[in-house]
């Protein structure tokens, strides 16, 4: 049962990634794209965690930690750039 459920979870998370990517391409201003990238980081962390729970490989959780850290730092850096520069 868990195989089918993990497949459904991975497909749903991939659909969410696709929708966030549409917003990343369309987004009229730069903060829209920053929000989409922030959501990207969260969804990728979720994908890695589900894969680690399915396959039992513990080492991929370290990659999830690193991606969460770098996503937060990138969001802060982009927000600083927006506050000082041109939003369009």
């Amino acid at each position, binding site marked *: *049962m*868990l195989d089918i*459920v*993990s497949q*459904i*979870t991975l497909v*749903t*998370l991939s*659909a*969410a*990634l*696709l*929708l*966030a990517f*549409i*917003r990343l391409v369309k987004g009229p*201003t730069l*903060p*829209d794209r*920053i*929000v*989409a990238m*922030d*959501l990207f980081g*969260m*969804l990728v*962390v*979720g994908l890695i*965690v*589900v894969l*680690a*729970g*399915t396959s*039992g490989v*513990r080492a991929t*959780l*370290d990659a*999830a*930690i690193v991606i*969460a*850290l770098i996503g*937060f730092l990138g*969001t*802060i850096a*982009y*927000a*600083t750039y*927006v*506050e000082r*520069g*041109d*939003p369009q």
Partner: protein
Amino acid sequence: MTDFVTATVWLVGSAFALLAAVGVLRMPDVFTRMQASTKASTLGLACLLIGAALQLGDFASFIRVASIGAFVLLTTPVAGHVIARASYFAGVPLWKGTVLDERRNAKAGPQPDE
């Protein structure tokens, strides 16, 4: 039993993540999009982390999963606040149906130029 709880929590978490993505795609404004993104994706990721911790059933992996969850719970509100503040002061237009803009009505503070 563990498999059943894991399956339920994973389905709920992926549904919340999909709702966050739909909100980011469909909301009319930067601030409403960010409101959908931060809250729903935090809840969905917490559910996915609980399922993975149950499935691995190891102390070291539980510590790692709990550290990811604590980090996300700490940093997502900070990131949302910083993005909202930066986009407001950069002059990103609000939605037409916005009924309250307390920052503009305040006497003190920098005004956003439109």
